[in-house]
């Protein structure tokens, strides 16, 4: 059996990649994919620990995360399409309506 730290390591790497993607990319769709990456790295952590501790709760949490992620994709893509229709761009640096 592969030891848990391996899973944790790859999970951390995935999370960091996702994080970096969110922070540095400008395309909204790419940022979206980076967020999915972060969510899935968390999922990986959950199942790894669930396996090690022989507890079902971690796997249940993963299902919740997957459902939430699906919902989030629906809402998020809808927003992105709406923005694209309004401004013909999905570059998030062009969308700074909240600037003070």
């Amino acid at each position, binding site marked *: 059996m592969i030891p848990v730290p391996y899973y944790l390591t790859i999970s951390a790497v995935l999370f960091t990649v996702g994080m970096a993607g969110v922070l540095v990319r400008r395309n909204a769709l790419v940022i979206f994919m980076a967020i999915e990456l972060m969510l899935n790295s968390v999922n990986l952590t959950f199942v790894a620990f669930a396996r090690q501790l022989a507890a079902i709760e971690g796997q249940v949490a993963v299902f919740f995360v997957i459902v939430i992620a699906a919902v989030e994709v629906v809402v998020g893509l809808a927003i992105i399409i709406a923005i694209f229709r309004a401004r013909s761009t999905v570059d998030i640096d062009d969308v*700074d309506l909240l600037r003070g």
Partner: protein
Amino acid sequence: MVLLFIILFPLAGWLINGFAGGRLPPRAPGLVGSASVGLSLTAALVAVQQPEVWREGLTASLFTWISAGEFSARASLVLDPLSAVMTLVVTGVGFLIHIYSIGYMAEDPGKSRYFAYLNLFIASMLVLVLAGNLLVMFVGWELVGLCSYLLIGFWFDRERAADAGRKAFIVNRIGDAGFLLGILLLAVTVKSLDFKAIADASSSMAVPVATAITLLLFVGATGKSAQLPLHVWLPDAMEGPTPVSALIHAATMVTAGVYMIGRLHPLFTQAELTLGVVAAVGAATAFFAATVALVEHDLKRVLAYSTISQLGYMFLAMGVAAAPAGMFHLTTHAVFKALLFLAAGSVMHAMHGVIDMRRLGGLARPMRWTALGFVIGAAALAGFPFTAGFFSKDLILERAFAHARGWGSYLLWAAGVATAFITAVYITRAAILTFAPPPSHHDHPPFDSAQGGPSGSRGPHEAPPEMGWPMAALAALSLGGGFLGASAVGAPLLHSLERFFNSAPEPEAGAVPVLALTLVSVSAALAGMLAGLWLYRGRRDASLSALGQFLSHKWYIEDLYNAAIVGPLRRGAQFLASTVELGIIDGAVIGVAGAVRQAGASFRRFQTGYVRNYAAVLLAGTVLLLGYWLTR
């Protein structure tokens, strides 16, 4: 019931004139106003026929006004000899002046307002006079103050009139503050403000308490009756219509202070010190105001200072425990001073508002009845033998002499005699300057300006009959009214008052040289008249040099007030307005707003609008929190 009607008639007149006067035909307000006071006079005459009035007094209790713990006050009225005399003066003189006003105010567009105020004044004055307790009296006291303010400022579009109204109101408030404190102290001490209860309680009251109460009440009297040092409002009050000056500022309202002392005489006799203060203030005021009247150029202001001076006589009488004499002088003064004012009003009416005596003169020819009325009033004021003022003034001087103990109090008498002399001089001067023909070498008589002026096509003319008859009635009373108090014919008025006050002992025969005193005061009056005739012969105005300068500044009292009170108050207000208001209060408000604005301006830089910045901050926060948890 009849007592209530005395008050209700003028009140009804006020309501009619106040609410409907503008829609009535032009002559109606005057008729309504006069008729309501005439009905009130009739009711008063009916009321005084009842024998109870002259024994224990006729009372009417209306309702319980305040009832709190031990203290209770009823709204009650009382008609006894004192208030009967005063009621007849108010309604009688008031009625005549209302009739006079019909002629005087005939051309004024605001006459329904005028008659409404005048009726309200009569009703208020009757509340004051008929009050059965001090609280009701205070209500009347304040109401007449209000009416006085309204009528002084009747021509409120003239700034001087509006200012004079405010001045009267403010100065009266100063006095009323003392009056109210006196009432409260009395309420705490006696637990009742009923005049009977006060009279019963006063004999057992501690002297210091009685002194404090009476001194506070006297402060109110100095304000209302224009005595030193609160006399400053009355001369300015002459900005109002002349009938108002006659009614409110000569005959009735200003005597309220004297009446109040008469009403509370058991309390005042308990306080020896207060009586001394009252007498001293009265004598000082009488002398002071008479000297100022000597140099005034405005005829009405001469009469105003004369009123202050005569009120001083009344207070002198009250202070030397001669309340009947004081009330007697109040009555005669109401008559002859009203006559003088009405004659002055007639002059003003004829001269289109000119009242400066330097521009008058020679009016005796075109206005001989007015001139005759003025001379009769002047004779009564000066105390010419057998006129009204002669009897009452003489009586006061006699009682002042009889009451005197030691040099200080003989000084009061001496001041009274000196005032009698000066009074005769100034009123002779006023009569000469107004009515005597100008010297022959004068090219054109002063009233030319009225003849050729733009406002009048004709020269001075005699007053219309509705102004003439009230003057005639007052002139008859000025000549004959004194016999109400002449001992030769039994002094009916004086005796009923003496019975009422029952504290004024007849000076036993021989204790006072009555004849000599009468001779002294009569010769003072006659000498004054002769001196006036000589000084101002041929209408020349004697300047009296440096003394005249001093007098024409009214002894610098008003300048002193301006420098010591008005100026600092004004500077204080200026300071508060410009420094405290603008600098501190506004500064604080603006400062808080500015600080918030500054803070907002610096905080808005955090809101870049870039999602990535928010995400980075989120990450940083999470890392910090994790770091905190892991390392603690």
